[in-house]
């Protein structure tokens, strides 16, 4: 059994079928790149795994635990909260919290999570907050922002903001970290710093799914590549297979076009 198994995911919005039967699996420590043109369903697939959308049918399981199954009754909010923590999500638009400084952006969610509904003495509370604080600083250090902990998001460049968002997602230590076009909202000269961070995470054995338009990145960093078209997985394989010897006509024409207008 693979680390992540996604089976038979269908999702429609009204009459529009966005996902028409998605099956794939990946192993721990792998990096999976999902490529494809706009509207092919890449983002919807990520959102389904992160419980931002509910698939019409299908199952998602991580490490043998079924997280989502359309056969089960709808999950309560509390169940969803537990289940979605197996995944982290980095958004295209960063979505940092503007009123908090960089450190607080990273530490807020773990603090809320660990302090909620517990009766703790002041000393215990202080200890927990200190641990979270240290961990958040360490994460910000790994994304190269230890000198920005006290800045506010509006004072950072897009690339820096996205790196904070990565640290924020890592703070809850998800099994699988998902990126939804993490560099699409960035100026071209800022994409490099974000991609470098993702590359470094790969060396620390992070399991990651990256929806991206950066073909060179997908080719150079991913272990597996999925090409999606019209709501189905059109092609799946290693980067060499997908980029070097695409089997499908659709993949070939997509790759030709993306190489023309990189």
């Amino acid at each position, binding site marked *: 059994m693979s680390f992540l198994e996604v089976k038979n995911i269908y999702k429609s919005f009204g009459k529009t079928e966005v996902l028409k039967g998605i099956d794939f699996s990946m192993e721990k420590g792998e990096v999976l790149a999902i490529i494809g043109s706009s509207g092919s369903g890449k983002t919807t697939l990520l959102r389904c795994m992160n419980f931002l959308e509910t698939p019409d049918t299908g199952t998602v399981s991580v490490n043998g635990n079924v997280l989502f199954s359309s056969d089960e009754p709808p999950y309560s*909010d509390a169940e969803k909260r537990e289940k979605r923590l197996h995944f982290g999500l980095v*958004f295209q638009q960063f979505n940092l919290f503007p*009123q908090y400084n960089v450190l607080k952006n990273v530490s807020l969610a773990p603090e809320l999570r660990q302090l909620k509904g517990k009766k703790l003495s002041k000393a215990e509370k202080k200890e927990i907050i200190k641990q979270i604080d240290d961990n958040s600083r360490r994460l910000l250090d790994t994304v190269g922002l230890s000198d920005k902990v006290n800045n506010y998001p509006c004072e950072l460049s897009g690339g820096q903001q996205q790196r904070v968002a990565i640290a924020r997602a890592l703070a809850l230590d998800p099994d699988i970290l998902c990126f939804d076009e993490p560099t699409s909202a960035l100026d071209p000269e800022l994409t490099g710093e974000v991609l470098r961070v993702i590359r470094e995470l790969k060396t620390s054995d992070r399991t990651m799914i990256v929806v991206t338009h950066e073909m060179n990145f997908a080719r150079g960093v991913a272990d597996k590549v999925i090409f999606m078209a019209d709501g189905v997985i059109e092609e799946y394989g290693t980067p060499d297979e997908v980029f070097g010897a695409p089997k499908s006509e659709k993949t070939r024409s997509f790759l030709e076009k993306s190489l023309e207008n990189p």
Partner: protein
Amino acid sequence: MSFWDVTRQLADGFGITLIIFGITLVASLPLGLIITFGSMSKIPPIKWITKVFVWIIRGTPLMLQIILIFYGPGLMNWDIMLPRLTAVLVAFIINYSCYFSEIYRGGIESISKGQYEAGQVLGMTKTQIFFKIVLFQVIKRIVPPMGNEIITLVKDTSLARVIAVTELVKAAENIIAVKSILWPLFYVGAFYLLFSALLTFLLNLAEKKMNYYSG
């Protein structure tokens, strides 16, 4: 009539003005939020009843509402007669809660969906997302329109005279009717001007305090 006699009488009126202003503000700020939740409710009956209620309150004059609340019960032969000031307060609180609720709603709806989703994927509860992420951003955005509404409230308090509550304007009228002198009216204007200047100053201060981040 000496300057000091006029000042004393106007100060009494201003006291009533301040009571109407203060109590309306303190009660309407939280009540408005409850109405906002009603008008944004996912349960259709609650949403539509709230929306119709807000439409009626915002679509009719506050003066009419004051008269209705004061005389209405008696005219319907109910055995209730609200004291004048209470009737004024009830009308003002209902009216201003509705206006505030619409400002809150605009503020809440202006927060991007991404902020909610970021909170969700980080495992926060709906309550945590509202109070820890959304609320402060909403407050920052609504300070300017709320300021407008609060300054309007200062002047609207003069509507209380319609059921003979002796607030500032009524106090001045009482003087000029008896003494046939003009200047107390200008003096009253100065009261309003100074008070709204103070409020403007405080609101600007709040705005500046929250300007440590942009967006």
